[in-house]
């Protein structure tokens, strides 16, 4: 791990006295004036934005990261409790529409420094090589302007920095992980048992939860509240994996700063900085380069809200690409009832996964595939599942009292990119007076077939493990796309280096640039894409 520390010292910059935040590092943080022309301002300090900040600060760039939410302190701000974790989610108003509207908030949207990785489960699989050429290979989705091979070195770097724990990985491009797999709890045990009995390969991992001490980050304590923010500092998020090192190299993190527009010079055609509101005061940070990393809803919304004479329909929207091809994964959850006590709340929800069904199977009527993972919902989420099944009243209470007997698996189905699945601006305005996002989503036939196929496999696994009853609820997970990379400006918003086609000093470095999503959780890929974009910038792409 010595090599990791040489290029990213974050884990060693955290305290080792049982507290979780290096307050001194934050107090001593460099602070720029709005009037300073900084080298780079980044909008959003989640997976993509934080990685970019850390890489460029390391190379001596003057960088400022703005985030609409707080600069979290896990000790003071986070609780080991479901309902009390509401403030971790982006809960500003949003409208959802389409034939299959996708709930937002806790499901897929973060807020504050660390972004949604603060409350993601922790799964960090790589995409498969096939994900980068689904149009060529399968006639669906899109081809990326870059290949898996282009991203692989960045995957390897980020896996060491998080770090990722898991068994040797047999799928996609086979690889191993820097840390050994974690021991599993009841839910993982059920999955492994059921998979073995039904001839399906399942592996422990890959999770960005430290198995053993990593720098000053302690070992996981298996308390199961990964989705509520890790108070232990064991689960990786940029708040602890990239921001400390960025601060130590002169980056400024300006929290509670809502960016409302991107400055644009009509004469030069270049971005000039960002308009933002902090403490109710409108301000403008000048910057030589602007990077937007607000994720798949807020990034398109910001571009659409940044109209000008040159861009009457929103910045970078010459070809009506902004906001389109937004994707979610179909994420049905199938639960099985066991006579034994599973107590799935003990241990992290991310434990075991299978990518055996990830690739297109020529014997099936649908293209692309799905993965299967343990999910382990806590009681409130579980109750919402039960209510979604139609249970209420005494019936709901009886189901809920049976909680300790249930095991729960979740699938990630690769829903296809479609132009009509997109963000537009709604009539409704937020408290800053900006139009909110309307996210429209409709499934296609291929999507629906994948969900049914994934449900069948999960039911098979749970029955094979000894479940006497199974139930399934349909839901969605993750977001990617909305400002995708492409080989030209008629098919996307940015090029393979995350640079926008329309404005030479405007970059997008978040999940919105992904043209396809595979059946993998996107966090690792978002970080790898941002790290690659950073390498392009420091190599002279400025």
């Amino acid at each position, binding site marked *: 791990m010595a090599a990791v520390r040489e290029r990213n010292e974050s884990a060693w910059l955290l305290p080792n006295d049982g507290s979780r935040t290096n307050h001194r590092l934050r107090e001593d943080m460099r602070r720029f004036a709005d009037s300073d022309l900084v080298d780079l301002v980044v909008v959003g300090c989640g997976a993509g934005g934080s990685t970019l900040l850390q890489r460029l600060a390391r190379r001596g760039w003057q960088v400022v990261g703005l985030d609409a939410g707080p600069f979290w302190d896990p000790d003071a701000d*986070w609780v080991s*409790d479901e309902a009390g974790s509401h403030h971790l989610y982006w809960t500003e108003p949003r*409208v959802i529409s389409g034939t299959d509207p996708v709930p*937002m908030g806790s499901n897929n949207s973060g807020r504050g420094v660390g972004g949604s990785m603060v409350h993601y489960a922790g799964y960090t699989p790589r995409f498969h090589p096939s994900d980068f050429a689904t149009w060529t290979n399968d006639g669906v989705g899109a081809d990326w302007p870059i290949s898996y091979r282009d991203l692989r070195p960045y995957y390897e770097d980020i896996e060491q920095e998080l770090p990722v724990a898991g068994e040797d990985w047999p799928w996609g491009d086979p690889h191993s992980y820097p840390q050994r797999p974690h021991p599993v709890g009841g839910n993982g045990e059920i999955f492994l048992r059921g998979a073995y009995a039904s001839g399906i390969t399942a592996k422990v991992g890959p999770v960005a939860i430290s198995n053993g001490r990593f720098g000053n980050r302690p070992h996981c304590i298996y308390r199961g509240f990964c989705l509520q923010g890790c108070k232990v500092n064991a689960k990786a998020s940029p708040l602890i994996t990239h921001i400390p090192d960025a601060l130590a190299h002169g980056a400024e993190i300006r929290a509670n700063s809502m960016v409302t527009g991107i400055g644009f010079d009509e004469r030069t055609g270049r971005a000039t900085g960002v308009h933002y509101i902090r403490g109710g005061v409108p301000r403008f940070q000048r910057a030589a380069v602007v990077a937007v990393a607000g994720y798949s809803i807020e990034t398109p919304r910001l571009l659409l809200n940044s109209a000008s004479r040159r861009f009457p329909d929103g910045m970078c929207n010459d070809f009506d690409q902004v906001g389109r091809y937004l994707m979610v994964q179909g994420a049905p959850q199938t639960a099985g009832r066991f006579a034994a006590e599973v107590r799935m709340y003990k241990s992290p929800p991310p434990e075991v996964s299978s990518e055996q069904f990830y690739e297109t199977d020529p014997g099936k009527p649908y293209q692309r595939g799905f993965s299967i993972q343990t999910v382990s919902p806590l009681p409130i989420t579980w109750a919402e599942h039960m209510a979604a099944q139609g249970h209420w009243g005494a019936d709901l209470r009886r189901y809920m*009292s049976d909680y300790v007997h249930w095991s729960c698996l979740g699938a990630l189905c690769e829903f296809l990119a479609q132009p009509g699945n997109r963000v537009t601006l709604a009539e409704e305005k937020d408290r800053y007076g900006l139009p909110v996002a309307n996210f429209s989503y409709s499934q296609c036939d291929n999507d629906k077939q994948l969900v049914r196929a994934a449900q069948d496999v999960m039911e098979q696994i749970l029955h094979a493990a000894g479940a006497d009853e199974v139930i399934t609820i349909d839901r969605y997970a993750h977001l990617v796309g909305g400002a995708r990379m492409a080989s030209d400006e008629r098919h996307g918003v940015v090029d393979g280096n995350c640079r926008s086609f329309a404005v030479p000093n405007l970059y997008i470095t978040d999940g919105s640039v992904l043209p396809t999503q595979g059946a993998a959780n996107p966090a690792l890929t978002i970080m790898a894409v941002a790290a690659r974009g950073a390498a392009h910038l420091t190599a002279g792409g400025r």
Partner: protein
Amino acid sequence: MSGPAEPGTAPRISDATGDRFPGFNVLDQVSHWDPVTAGLVLSRVGRPPDIRFFSPAEEAAATALCDRLLGQGGEPKVAVVPHIDARLTEQETDGWRYADMPEDRQAWRESLRFLDEDSRAACSREFARASAEDQRAVIQAVQDLGAKDWHGLCAAHVWSLWTRYACTAFYAHPSAWNEIGFPGPAYPRGYKNPGVDAREPYEVADARPSADPLDGKGR
């Protein structure tokens, strides 16, 4: 809790499930929780927040609705409506609304008024003054509509609104955790004994493990 309660205790709620985890009391472990979490959870067994958003008529309808949705009959019970009211006062939404629904505050007000209208039509009484049986019938009729129209709203989206707010408030309460055998917060101690049929010393085994709700044996 609207019934009598010792500070720092979470009384057994009126029985809907047959006390499957006898003697289990999550609050026995408070001394093992971090202070931020402990403060939050203990606040839920203390005095509920005052009603600020709902009118008295809306409060009455919401209370009857949540009692029926959550199967709460007599006392003691978990006070759910004050927590829903607090969320609506503070506009603590889930961060999205369906395009065919008004924002949450208006959707709650309207849907409670529609419950009163349906109840008056069915039994000539406001929803809160109807018998529990009549209330259940009115609620069931809404659920049975599925995605169809209910007073100009998509019934399924109203159902989602009600159950999300009600389930979040109820299953955030230690009394509800006692009922389902869930020990609540787990920091900084964590778990040392995960796995199938493995328990921590303070967890209590299910006294009726065959009470599978799916086959009716638990009823």
